[in-house]
């Protein structure tokens, strides 16, 4: 029931992208859980983050780890798979089966590489909309996601307001700040500085830009954690040694931890995908098609919305999330907001955070009961 599925979309009419190019017959890989009811009013769309994928509540085929949101999605969980029909697609530009740089371009018969068009968050949402149409869903009960997933949620609310009954954007922002862009640029430069990257042509080579991708992941990973959490987890503790080595080995536990994060990441992620998706995030500004007016961008939104932020998230801080709340308030949109106190940093939405569990469960349950 929840195995990975792949569907070809835009087979008749190409998907026109923001960059002006278009994608014809592109693939979307997705998982589903639960059953769509006869009224078709119980669909929940989950939008994954930068390095997430469609394996939201099932074991990952490469890492064998349980789904990235199994704490939230499953029987009797806030996103109750006994009650709801859950859809989680891999975004276009991704590397878990949806059309992206490592897939074959059907027009040339060759791997895209950096010939893949630069995509945007809006393009990802347009692609998701085709999947929702294909699944026969006219109105999604709830669209949710954290971080980049939250950007997709906002884009849904702005571009397809009539299709969204309710939404939960988590730890996100209406656009990428200079600091966000700077961190992504650091990650991209580390990939491109790896000679194995070879301008994106490495798919037929034995040498892949694993080191560059690994460093990109290490840098990003720091931004997902809070200073307090790093301090309490690692402090200045040494790794399997009692004194400093006076070398550049991983003396400190935090170094060893980050290296591990980097090494394991490259097994499941494609370096070019990382470039494309971070670019999409940097380009993101939900108001860009309305001359920068957030009010114009959400003027047709009628959904019930719950915004969630975390106190120790410095990547998409509470202030950014409150901006969304302010716009929605101004428009009289039915918006709720909760700021969860935690030292878990930006990553909190992926952690076992009971207050997140409670807020999502309360909101989803009561909203569905009042449907």
């Amino acid at each position: 029931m929840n195995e990975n599925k792949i569907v070809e979309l835009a087979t008749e009419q190409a998907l026109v992208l923001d960059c002006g190019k278009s994608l014809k017959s592109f693939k979307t890989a997705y998982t589903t859980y639960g059953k769509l009811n006869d009224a078709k009013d119980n669909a929940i769309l989950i939008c994954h983050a930068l390095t997430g994928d469609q394996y939201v509540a099932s074991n990952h085929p490469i890492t064998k780890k349980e789904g990235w949101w199994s704490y939230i999605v499953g029987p009797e969980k806030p996103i109750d798979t006994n009650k709801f029909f859950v859809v989680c697609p891999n975004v276009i530009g991704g590397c878990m089966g949806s059309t992206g740089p490592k897939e074959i371009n059907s027009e040339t018969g060759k791997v895209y590489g950096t010939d893949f068009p630069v995509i945007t968050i809006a393009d990802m949402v347009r692609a998701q909309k085709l999947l929702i149409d294909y699944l026969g869903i006219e109105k999604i009960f709830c669209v949710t996601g954290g971080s980049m997933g939250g950007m997709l949620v906002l884009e849904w609310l702005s571009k397809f307001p009539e299709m969204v009954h309710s939404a939960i954007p988590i730890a996100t922002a209406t656009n990428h700040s200079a600091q966000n862009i700077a961190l992504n640029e650091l990650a991209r430069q580390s990939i491109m500085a790896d000679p194995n990257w070879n301008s994106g042509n490495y798919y037929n080579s034995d040498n892949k830009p694993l080191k560059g991708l690994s460093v990109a992941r290490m840098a990003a990973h720091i931004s997902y954690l809070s200073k307090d959490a790093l301090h309490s987890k690692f402090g200045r503790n040494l790794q399997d040694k009692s004194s400093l080595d006076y070398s550049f080995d991983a003396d400190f536990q935090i170094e060893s931890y980050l290296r591990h994060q980097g090494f394991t990441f490259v097994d499941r992620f494609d370096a070019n995908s990382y470039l494309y998706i971070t670019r999409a995030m940097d380009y993101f500004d939900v108001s860009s098609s309305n001359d920068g007016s957030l009010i114009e961008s959400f003027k047709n939104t009628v959904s019930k919305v719950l915004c969630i932020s975390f106190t120790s998230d410095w990547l998409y801080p509470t202030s950014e999330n409150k901006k969304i709340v302010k716009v929605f308030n101004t428009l009289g949109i039915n918006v709720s907001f909760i700021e969860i106190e935690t030292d878990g940093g930006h990553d909190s939405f992926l952690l076992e955070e009971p207050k997140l569990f409670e807020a999502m469960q309360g909101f989803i349950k009561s909203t569905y009961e009042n449907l």
Partner: protein
Amino acid sequence: MSLINEKKDFKIIADLIPANSSVIDVGCNDGSLLEFLKEEKDINGRGMEIDQQKVQLCLSKGISVIEGDADLDLYDYPDNLFDYSILTYTLQATKSPKNVLSELVRISSKAIISFPNFGHWKIATSLLIKRKMPISEKLSYSWHETPNLHFCTINDFIDLCEEAGIRIEKQANLKTNRLNKFYGKNLLNSYFNEVGLFLVSKIKN
């Protein structure tokens, strides 16, 4: 809050609000007043609450609620967004009652404000005879642990409204459960009402 005689106060507040109004309850607690008003008057309600556990309760009841602080977060709302704003038993706990009042009448056409009256004879007597800070049903905290920062009497409130350019339209008498036309400041008013409950609006220039 245990301070509130729910049924009585809720009913009086409901009587002040026409059906289908848009309403924000600032310091909405567990959302029970908003639920009551939804049932009685089919209002379009919003809540603001500083206590996260109560925010969670509101969410589970399907009430749209912002985790926020009356002193800081009312500025985020545009002028006249709501027909009514409600502030029950919260004014005395705000850092700046005057700013909060001004914000309430800015974001809504009319505001309903209630607070424990420090001028009530029982309280005055406690101070006068016992020389101790009063503890009563409506003021249930001892002085060193009270969240209340700015106590006022009904007469003080009337003065503050005047200073802030706010018109008092009605005052509720919670003893008789009646809404009275507001007759102005007088000693008896402040002396015999344990609670001040007022309907106010901004004086337009």
